[in-house]
């Protein structure tokens, strides 16, 4: 119980690292900055691991374990409806998963960054921000109430902004940072209003108190709350229609894309929806919205990924698409599948981004896949790890992505909230995912080099970059095996582990459904043998479309490399539509950005600001100055004129007393 009673240590370590590097890092050598940054995150990981070990010794009724450190805010009378926020952290099964993912992947990416950023300016600044990000992300996942969660939520947004715009001298990077911040702010508005509505409805923002009182609230209020909270998730997790910031966020350094924009921060929305599951489960309309947004995003952004040529952009659209799957899972009530995919995605997408970074590093900064090719032999470690990541994301049997994606699609097809159209979108998206990911691998590593071999000296990345790749590749294979026994008719251990979080406050009718499934004697068919179950799991639509995507990509980009060109020409309009990302950025610019800019410039700036606000301020100053310069003339410095004024005043006063006020009578 040593660390369990001091949950704050996990947060404090990266914060201390950020503070030290931020204050002193500028004058220190890189090795010192490295040891502070990596050291603090490694210690944080170890603290988290020890905390989790202690967590497993807790009795079921002690979970969630809450550490309440101080009362942060108190408002109003000390009645039952007083506004009271504690700085409280909690740990339960869901937090355990997030905690391990965040600290472990974060640690690997910190190590990787020491190699990737070695030749960059602002080295200390980068690690200061990265550590600060870890602090806020851990705050987010360990928060025991919505306000503390919101602190983490906004904090990671801030760090995202700072790190996207890390190379702030580059205009596109600075713009991308601003875009990310502003677009997520739109969603955060909904999130904020949602929190206020939660407080208005439940009289508390602490998770335990909210969930305990959820069953007697009306469905309409819960639906509104859920939709508002989900608006925040849409912004943070880059779903339709607020996904536009994520592809641009690739302007940041690649480790940032891996840590923030693939593995952790963008999954905060999924985590939040899963955390608020007692509310969502009671709001069927909100659930349907979540599922639809997720499924449509999963399919939609996969189509954009088909034609992108920037290696990081492909991965960015792929991230948007995979996040869509997670929301689809939450929307059909399969929260564990969503969190499972969140975890495996953190492994394989973190891996893919880091490997892409290694490719970019090897190519001396080139990101265009059309200028790569044939790198397989030159950077074998990167190639193999990236290939494993691709197999995982494509859902090839045995790899991590297979288990989690299968769980999602199965829930969409057979779960309590099954929906055939959403399932079809998911399966189609899975096929597209497989295609564009293998396209990426084939374009990058196979075929003939399409760069000038005399100018670009391709070199394998240093050990501190390849080792994290290998660790993540290992996890991309085995990270999903918690669910493996299910293939042969056994238990999904991940599902079983998380079940308490999602069943504790589940609405009663869901529990009934589970009971019905469990009873084997009611099944119309005999109990299948493990071997049959295995065959049935492997011959499924997701696997089939995954393999199909692989074969099509192989045929297009290795066997007949001329076909994509011809297809692009024959279906030119469609190709252009996809290449330009459905012109969504242009549509937003025309519908929202430009009108807003026009109003801001011509009304708010020139009329309201310059006319009204400046007018009032300058007018006040002018009146004071003019009256002062008139009154100044009285102060002539001439003694006798003062005397004259005194006398005039005395006379005037006398006149007032005697004539006007008539004091004599």
């Amino acid at each position, binding site marked *: 119980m040593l660390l369990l009673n001091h949950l704050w240590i996990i947060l404090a370590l990266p914060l201390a690292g950020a503070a030290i590097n931020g204050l002193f890092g500028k004058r220190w050598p890189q090795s010192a900055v490295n040891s502070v940054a990596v050291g603090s995150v490694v210690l944080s990981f170890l603290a988290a691991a020890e905390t989790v070990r202690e967590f497993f010794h807790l009795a079921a009724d002690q979970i969630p374990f809450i550490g309440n450190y101080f009362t942060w805010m108190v408002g109003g009378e000390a009645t039952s409806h007083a506004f009271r926020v504690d700085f409280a952290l909690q740990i339960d099964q869901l937090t355990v998963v997030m905690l391990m993912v965040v600290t472990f992947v974060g640690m690997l990416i910190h190590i990787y960054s020491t190699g990737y950023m070695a030749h960059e300016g602002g080295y200390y600044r980068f690690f200061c921000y990265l550590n600060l990000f870890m602090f806020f992300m851990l705050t987010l996942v360990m928060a025991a109430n919505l306000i503390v969660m919101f602190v983490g939520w906004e904090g990671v947004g801030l760090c995202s902004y700072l790190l996207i715009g890390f190379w702030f001298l580059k205009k596109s990077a600075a713009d991308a940072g601003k875009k990310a911040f502003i677009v997520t702010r739109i969603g955060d508005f909904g999130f904020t209003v949602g929190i206020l509505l939660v407080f208005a409805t439940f009289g508390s923002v602490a998770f335990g108190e909210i969930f305990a009182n959820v069953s007697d609230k009306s469905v309409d209020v819960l639906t509104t709350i859920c939709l508002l909270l989900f608006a925040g998730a849409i912004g943070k997790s880059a779903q339709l229609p607020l996904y536009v910031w994520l592809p641009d966020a690739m302007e940041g350094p690649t480790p940032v894309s891996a840590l923030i924009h693939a593995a952790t921060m963008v999954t905060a929305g999924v985590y939040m929806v899963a955390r608020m599951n007692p509310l969502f489960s009671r709001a069927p309309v909100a659930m349907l919205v979540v599922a639809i947004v997720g499924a449509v995003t999963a399919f939609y952004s996969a189509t954009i990924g088909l034609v992108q040529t920037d290696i990081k952009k492909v991965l960015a659209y792929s991230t948007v698409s995979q996040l869509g799957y997670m929301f689809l899972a939450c929307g059909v009530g399969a929260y564990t599948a969503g969190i499972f995919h969140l975890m495996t995605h953190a492994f394989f997408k973190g891996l893919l981004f880091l490997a892409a970074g290694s490719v970019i590093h090897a190519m001396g900064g080139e990101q265009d896949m059309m200028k790569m090719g044939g790198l397989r032999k030159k950077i074998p470690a990167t190639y193999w790890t990236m290939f494993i990541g691709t197999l995982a994301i494509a859902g090839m049997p045995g790899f991590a992505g297979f288990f989690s994606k299968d769980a999602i699609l199965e829930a969409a097809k057979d779960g309590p909230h099954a929906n055939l159209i959403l399932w079809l979108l998911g399966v189609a998206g899975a096929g597209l995912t497989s295609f564009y990911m293998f396209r990426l691998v084939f374009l990058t590593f196979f075929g003939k080099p399409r760069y000038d071999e005399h100018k670009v000296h391709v070199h394998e990345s240093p050990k501190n970059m390849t080792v994290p790749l290998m660790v993540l590749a290992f996890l991309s294979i085995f990270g999903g095996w918690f669910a493996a026994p299910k293939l042969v008719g056994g238990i999904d251990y991940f599902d079983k582990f998380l079940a308490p979080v999602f069943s504790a406050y589940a609405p009663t009718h869901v529990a009934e459904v589970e009971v019905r499934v469990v009873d084997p004697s009611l099944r119309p068919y005999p109990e299948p043998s493990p071997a049959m179950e295995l065959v049935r799991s492997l011959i499924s639509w997701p696997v089939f479309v995954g393999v199909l995507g692989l074969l099509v990509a192989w045929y297009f980009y290795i066997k007949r490399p001329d076909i994509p060109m011809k297809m692009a020409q024959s279906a030119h309009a469609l190709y252009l539509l996809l290449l330009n990302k459905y012109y969504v950025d242009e549509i937003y610019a025309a519908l929202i950005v430009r009108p807003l800019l026009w109003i801001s410039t011509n009304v708010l700036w020139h009329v309201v600001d310059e006319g009204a606000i400046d007018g009032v301020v300058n007018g006040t100053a002018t009146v004071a100055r003019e009256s002062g310069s008139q009154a100044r003339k009285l*102060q002539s*410095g001439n003694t*006798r004129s003062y005397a004259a004024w005194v006398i005039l005043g005395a006379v005037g006063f006398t006149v007032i007393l005697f004539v006007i006020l008539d004091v004599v009578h």
Partner: protein
Amino acid sequence: MSAVPISFYLVLSAILFGLGVVAFVFKRNIITIFMSIELMLNAVNLAFVAFARARGELDGLVFVFFVIVVAAAEAAVGLAIVIMLAQNRQSLNVERVNLLKL
């Protein structure tokens, strides 16, 4: 004893005070200005004495003594300033005492 009406004293006092004011405002010689201040003070003294006599009380007379004492002190300080001024400026014209003017 046929009493002189109080209004006579008051009118005389007002005339003396008015003369003092006019002299204070229009004269430039600082010693003259000083004298006009004394004139005003004594005009006020006269009014105090007249009221004290008319009302048969001593309060006004007490005020007169205060005024005389203050006037003496003021004369001591004022004349010292005048001497310093005369030494520094070689002039008694108040128009030239304008260092604090804008």
